[in-house]
């Protein structure tokens, strides 16, 4: 029995590989069929074909503008989160004083619901791209800090003793041992934060924007153009997936040795 499981026939291998695609296609087919059978009005649940039609009705230039706006804020907020988190994590690991002073503040900031603070920040910072980037940053940076601190703090005692035995200064301990050691943790957090960054951007766009995929969903639902809202949602999902896969790819290319511990 075990040999058969390990050496499936050619058809079986092909089927196994195509299984995710087939499941996806089956769900879409059932969806389409239900809409047709029960004659569901498109404002309740549009059929996949109606969603595609609505998506194609919008010009490529308009799509590009919406995607570009969302992507700019999501990537900008994400990169800002990375740039702020890494030095912050290093500071927390190097000093017990900074850890004790900063950590409670971080947890308070993290406990603020992003949806609740978004309107306030938009008043404070104005309705432009800056406010949306800050909101995206706020939701994306906490997992990166916590995970990087955890990674840098989980360096085995033997390695710390080696460093002390060599009387290496703290900055070299950080750069040559703690930081590389935390790469696997960092990338695990980046994958989570990439998804969070898209969420933050969309929430900000709901409240204040005149362009972007979040805006498009908000605008089309308020005009009862539900198929278009679904089309924007589908594009958002694809964007999120690409973002996620890109981070996995960067880790595999730049830090292949860190893959074994996280995958």
């Amino acid at each position, binding site marked *: 029995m075990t040999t058969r499981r390990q050496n499936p026939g050619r058809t079986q291998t092909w089927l196994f590989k195509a299984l995710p695609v087939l499941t996806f296609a089956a769900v879409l087919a059932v969806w389409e069929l239900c809409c047709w059978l029960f004659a569901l009005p498109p404002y309740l649940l549009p059929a996949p074909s109606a969603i595609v039609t609505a998506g194609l009705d919008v010009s490529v230039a308009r799509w590009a503008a919406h995607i570009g706006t969302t992507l700019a804020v999501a990537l900008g907020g994400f990169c800002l989160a990375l740039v702020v988190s890494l030095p912050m994590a290093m500071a927390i690991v190097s000093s017990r004083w900074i850890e004790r002073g900063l950590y409670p503040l971080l947890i308070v900031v993290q406990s603020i619901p992003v949806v609740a603070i978004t309107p306030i920040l938009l008043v404070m910072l104005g309705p432009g791209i800056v406010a949306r980037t800050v909101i995206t940053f706020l939701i994306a940076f906490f997992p990166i800090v916590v995970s990087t601190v955890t990674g840098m703090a989980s360096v*085995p005692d*033997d*390695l710390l*003793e*080696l*460093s*002390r*035995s*060599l*009387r*290496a200064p703290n900055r*070299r301990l950080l750069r*040559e*041992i703690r930081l*590389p050691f935390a*790469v696997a943790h960092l990338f695990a957090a980046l994958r989570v934060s990439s998804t969070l960054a898209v969420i933050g951007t969309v929430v900000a766009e709901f409240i204040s924007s005149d362009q972007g995929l979040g805006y498009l969903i908000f605008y089309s639902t308020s005009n009862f153009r539900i198929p278009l809202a679904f089309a924007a949602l589908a594009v958002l999902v694809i964007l999120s997936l690409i973002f996620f896969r890109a981070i996995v790819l960067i880790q595999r290319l730049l*830090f292949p*040795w*860190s893959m*074994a511990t996280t995958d």
Partner: protein
Amino acid sequence: MSLPMSDEPSPTPAIRLTDVGLTFSPAGQAPVTALDGISLTVARGEFVAILGPSGCGKSTLLRLIDGLLEPTAGSIHVFDYPMVAPRDDIGFVFQKCTLLPWLNVMDNVLFALRHRQGRITAEQRTAAARWLDIVGLSAFAQARPDALSGGMQQRLGLARALLLDPDILLMDEPFSALDAMTRDEMGLRLMQLWNSHPTTVVFVTHSISEALFLADRIVVMSARPGRIRDIVNVPLARPRGLDTLRDPQFQALANQLRDDYFAFDESAIADRVSSR
């Protein structure tokens, strides 16, 4: 070097421990005495093994000599200077060989030196290649350390410590995680290396035969608190190799050490049984 060390230390010993004790006092708990009344002198060029069961404080003792821990009693001198902090002339080989998975084998050898100095000279790079050759890992210079076997990883750890060109080498059960055959092979390799590059070594182990094969003197420790029970001179001829293992005297000494050790244990157990 072929003669066993006498009890009289040479004029300037490599290491001198005088009545060293270490008591941990964790907050809110009863203090724990890890080491008590340790006095030991290690001569230059001497190979000393510290033998004892796990928990007897032998690894802690090694960390005191390296300056990673500070004694709560007594004094430690290295080359007649009081120990205040880790020194450049002491190399440490860890039980787990603490290799860095993000560096290849060559960069792992260079790591300790680079971590200490911040940079590497061309001569040091050449020296690293030579040590890699001596421990038989030249062919793996570009490999990742996790591609190496356990024995090869320990050889890499040894090469890394030797590149620092230490006057004293402290080894903390370096072969204890290896299988029995690899362990024997590593002992033979270490002896070969030491025969051609003699240096002062303090080698912690819980293997009687390993201690006998390698050392000039064996410091036998007892546990809780860690104390020196006995210091045994090993009269086996040097240079040592496979012939040493065949020597009937080797077996006799091993038996004697084992008998002494367990006779002590048996009497302790007998005492406890009779007192009930």
